[in-house]
């Protein structure tokens, strides 16, 4: 009942500019998560509704939702939750103004990187093909306009063209480049390097940390954490980006 009531609220308000009684709904959602955090159905609705309610001008609420989305992008979350998560991230990207809020969006960038490393191709391709990722593409390097698709609506054309021109590794690199490019002030650049690239891509080893916990002896089944997130190419790429950035600033 709770799940379908919340889903109905989401469906009705999906395309509305404002949501009435947002404060009450926020309180209910917090309560729902406190009581039923392990229920993947309710977590999925929580993600979609929380993203719908977030104000993209408010940096604090962007930070909060970013943390929630990054936490639910890991592969140890149920598939149902990850699907809701990728849809929420794609929907949020459409509304984001990365140029002016890059420091508040670091968790969202992390969620994007995690999703693009998800073990399910459908989850990865959902994000690659969503119109919102056009904001993460370096316009000077990659084309999001395809001459053969110029007849369609801009959003459709952009989405389809991305399938042609991009793949997950290219998009990851492009997204991180865009984060650095959007950080205009030196302190913003430092924040992207010190709060995103170094701790989350170079120093973080979630797959190895997961193995250190030795779940083999437990009787319950644990989904392994996304092993691709530990790949050396990610660390190398982050290191290369930092190196290039330091050469520019020198």
């Amino acid at each position, binding site marked *: 009942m709770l799940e379908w009531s919340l889903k109905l609220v989401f469906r009705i308000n999906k395309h509305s500019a404002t949501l009435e009684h947002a404060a009450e709904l926020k309180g209910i959602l917090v309560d*729902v998560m406190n009581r039923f955090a392990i229920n993947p159905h309710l977590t999925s609705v929580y993600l979609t509704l929380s993203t719908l309610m977030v104000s993209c001008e408010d940096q604090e609420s962007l930070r909060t939702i970013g943390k929630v989305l990054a936490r639910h992008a890991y592969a140890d979350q149920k598939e149902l939750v990850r699907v809701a998560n990728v849809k929420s991230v794609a929907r949020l990207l459409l509304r984001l103004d990365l140029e002016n809020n890059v420091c508040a969006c670091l968790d969202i960038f992390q969620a994007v990187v995690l999703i693009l490393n998800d073990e399910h191709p459908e989850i990865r391709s959902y994000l690659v093909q969503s119109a919102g990722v056009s904001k993460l593409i370096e316009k000077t390097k990659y084309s999001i306009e395809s001459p053969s698709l110029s007849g369609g609506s801009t959003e459709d054309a952009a989405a389809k063209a991305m399938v042609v021109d991009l793949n997950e590794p290219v998009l990851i690199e492009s997204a991180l480049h865009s984060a650095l490019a959007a950080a205009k002030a030196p302190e913003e650049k430092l924040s992207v390097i010190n709060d995103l690239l170094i701790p989350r891509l170079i120093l973080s080893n979630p797959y190895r940390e997961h193995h250190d916990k030795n779940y083999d002896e437990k009787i319950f089944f644990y989904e392994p954490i996304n092993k691709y997130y530990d790949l050396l190419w990610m660390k190398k790429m982050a290191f290369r980006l930092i190196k290039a950035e330091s050469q520019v600033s020198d």
Partner: protein
Amino acid sequence: MVELTKINLVLQSKNHFGDAQKKEDANATMFWTQIFALLSNGSFIDNNIDYVFKFLKSLNSQIKKLKLKAMASLPQELKDFSSFIITKLLPYLMKK
């Protein structure tokens, strides 16, 4: 009487949005007045939990089938129903 209301509740919900545009306003208003009255009654929800569940599910799938254009201009009754869920139904369900 109660049985009839319960059946009407589900049946009407099934075709309410399929041809929402064709329905007369008076019918739609009566339908929603009935829904709000029934769902405001806690004991009705408790005694007819399956019907209420089916109603919510059916309404959800009907809205899901709507085209983008129709989604942009949903009837006011539905927006009122969303507010009703947030302010009345959800707090009631959370207390249980």
